């Protein structure tokens, strides 16, 4: 084999492997625009997820969440939720409502079969579990770019455009509440935009429960326009899951506002949190039994 022939074979091999590496893009399944998803597809996935319910988490008692101690944190607002385990019957309506509010895509069939869904709310042993919005959130500490951050009023938020997808936050979340977009939800045709107010996350970006931040922000802007000078306390706002719960088992509100439905509901109840996050000052707690 002379030099020329060797080079020819070598470059042909390289080109061949390069083509092989790209085969999905060149030959394989391109995104199918025509196949429109229906709401029923999402309902079925929620049913399927309920059939693959995760085991329950060990709960320990926690005090009522107080104002955050971080610098610049609001002393008036700390948004959170309480989930009434006595009322919840794990119907899964909150999961579906969350999907519709936040445009959560379906997960690929092979992932779904392994019990991996993109749902921000998951049923763990009959109790809905989502991001607990820890005041001392471990995910935010390890995020290299600051894409995972804490708002002054207690929401653990995600800045999708600043996420590099290092998945460090996901590895460091004790309750595995963070979901990673392994696939492109749009190109794979598995997303449906129910809510125009929430962007569909791109491939390679981490996402999780945002405590319906968009609802809070919309309400805040309206409030500020209508009542200039007054401080916004989040009254009248509720999350999609709380609004959808037929038993009123999920209650959204402001932990620091005495008049908030959350404080009124949780006042004489015993509060619990999963043991894994109980020491991290969670904003979302479970209620069970009366004091």
């Amino acid at each position: 084999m002379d030099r020329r022939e060797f080079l020819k074979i070598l470059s042909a091999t390289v080109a061949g492997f390069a083509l092989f590496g790209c085969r999905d893009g060149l030959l394989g399944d391109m995104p199918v625009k025509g196949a429109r998803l229906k709401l029923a597809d999402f309902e079925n996935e929620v049913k399927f997820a309920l059939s693959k319910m995760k085991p329950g988490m060990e709960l320990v008692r926690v005090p009522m969440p107080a104002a955050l101690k971080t610098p610049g944190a609001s002393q008036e607002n700390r948004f959170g939720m309480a989930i009434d385990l006595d009322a919840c019957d794990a119907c899964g309506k909150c999961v579906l409502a969350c999907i519709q509010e936040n445009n959560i895509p379906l997960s690929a069939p092979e992932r779904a079969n392994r019990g991996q869904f993109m749902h921000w709310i998951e049923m763990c042993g009959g109790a809905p579990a989502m991001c607990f919005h820890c005041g001392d959130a471990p995910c935010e500490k390890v995020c290299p770019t600051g894409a995972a951050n804490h708002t002054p009023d207690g929401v653990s938020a995600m800045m999708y455009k600043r996420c590099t997808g290092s998945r460090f936050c996901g590895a460091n979340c004790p309750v595995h509440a963070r979901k990673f977009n392994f696939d492109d939800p749009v190109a794979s045709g598995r997303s449906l935009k129910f809510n125009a107010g929430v962007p569909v996350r791109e491939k390679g970006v981490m996402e999780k429960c945002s405590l319906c931040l968009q609802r809070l922000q919309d309400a805040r802007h309206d409030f500020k326009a209508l009542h200039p000078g007054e401080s916004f306390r989040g009254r009248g706002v509720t999350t999609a899951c709380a609004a959808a719960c037929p038993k009123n088992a999920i209650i959204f509100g402001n932990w620091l506002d005495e008049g908030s439905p959350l404080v009124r509901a949780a006042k004489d109840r015993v509060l619990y949190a999963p043991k894994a996050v109980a020491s991290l000052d969670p904003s979302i707690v479970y209620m069970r039994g009366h004091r």
Partner: protein
Amino acid sequence: MIFRILLYAGLALLLPGLAALGYSLWEGPAVWSLDTHTFWGTPVSLFVFWIGIAHAGTLISAILLALGVPLDRRTSMLAELTTLCALLVAAIYPLMHLGVVENFYMVIPFLDARGSFANVRSPLVWDFCCIAIYAVLSLVFFAIHLFADRSQALEDVRRPMAWLLFPLVLWVHTIVSLDFAVTFVPEWRGAFFPLYFIAGAIYSGLAMVNVLLVAEGCRVRLLEKLMMVGSFVMLVFWAWNFALKGDWNFSVFAFGALLPQLWWVSAVRESPIGRLAISISVLFGLWLERFFLVMPAEPRGFGYVDAGLVAFSIGLFTTLLVILRVKLRKPIEGGELLFGELEEASAPVVEPHTEPLTSREFIVLRFPLLLGVLVALVYTLWAVSQPVFDTVAVAIPNVAPLFYPIVALVAAIALCIRPVWQAVSAHNADGCGSRYLKIAFAICVLMFAFFAGVFYAGGSSAPSKFTSYAQVPGEADSGAFDTLRTRAVWNARCSGCHGTDGKFNAKFVREFYPVPQKLTAARLDSLGEDSLVHVIMYGRTNMNPYGDRITEAEARALVRYMRSLAPEDIPAPEINDSTHEINNSTPETNDSAEVLQ
């Protein structure tokens, strides 16, 4: 001959590996991972493995040099070459591990044009900086060694450089272990992790150098003995880990600690095949260890792509190493043919301490170190005052991991400038050697300037190209929007940047975008409604497209609302012809609603 075989073997692994790399870059992390619990996969384990080998290369050459243990030039050069190649391989994996690879620069803790700062509390930020600095210093150390036989001045800085690299290696690998040890994953917790990682790195690196020595056709007994010791040290760590957490992996134990006991058997030890087998078994065992560590929970997927990535790393390392080794045959082998321990050369005479600020010792050794400490101090204090958000308190311990690497970087540069300059001017006469040095220097400066500029500029602020893909269901355009409804949309969608009253939310905008020029009612009128609607729907330079969130009728209503916010009484600014030209050529920068300040 042996190099040719190695080159072909390397290429044979590299090419299918390239396909795996390309495929995983194309498809993203989905191909090798994982599930909602295990987010890190083969790339991270390969990263830890190769960075460990790199560190051991430095260790064998620099630490032995610093401690005055004599090692011949050829072996130490080989170890340094191993460092460089392994570092390059290691650097690929954290990058390809990212979900959004092009955003990697956001990890660098330096102010960019938009004033955003990385989260220095994250071990990944420490990691990135430490490894970048370590790579630069390893390259400098290797280059100095390469040219040391031509210039005594360069030879003299080798030992101070080694003293800078010695703590750096330990520091950097400690940081790598902190990637794991600071987390909440039960299997990754343990204060002993830094030591555990350093021991593993040194052990695997010794094995790698022994493999290469077999390829060179020789052996260095010192390194074999060190490997023997290493196997017992690792055994202690594994036993400790087992006692703490109950993790025990038999295959890691068998390959990493049991098989190396064959060093005791002289028949095995004397045969190259035996030495090769032991070393490769150790490498395999330690890679397995990293693999199980990175993916602590079942299911651990290992598919074709993972195998391809492993093959890629081995192939790239072998190919690079062989090419460099063959290219640098002359300077590496030099006149020496012998291997093994050397007679210790007489140590450079250090003057007794005389004048504190003018002695040669101060100028050559202490001043660079002092400069490094000062720069690192200034940087640390500055970085502490740069929290990623107002709600984050950055403390000194969060920035402290960057301290020594900066000291080392600055000190090493200050240390090397004089001898390099001397070497260059000494070789000015013959031209050849100095030309290489000059070119290398120019490349270094250019690259530094280029990367500094790129990082300062940050990524493109152009809106994402993946936008209006999903259709807004329902909500047919009703055509008419009352002011209240439009104001609600404006307040919800636009006021984040543009403010509820149409005046900028200046603090926010300045943080993320260049502030656009002011627009007045007159200018809004001249731009026209249609073009402004187009900007809202499809975006312009810094304005994100909103076509996926609002309908065209809403956008039209927004433009009218915006017009109503614009102050009529402010006349258009008086502009002379030249600025007028500029304004006309870039009307986009002030878009739709950026507008009314």
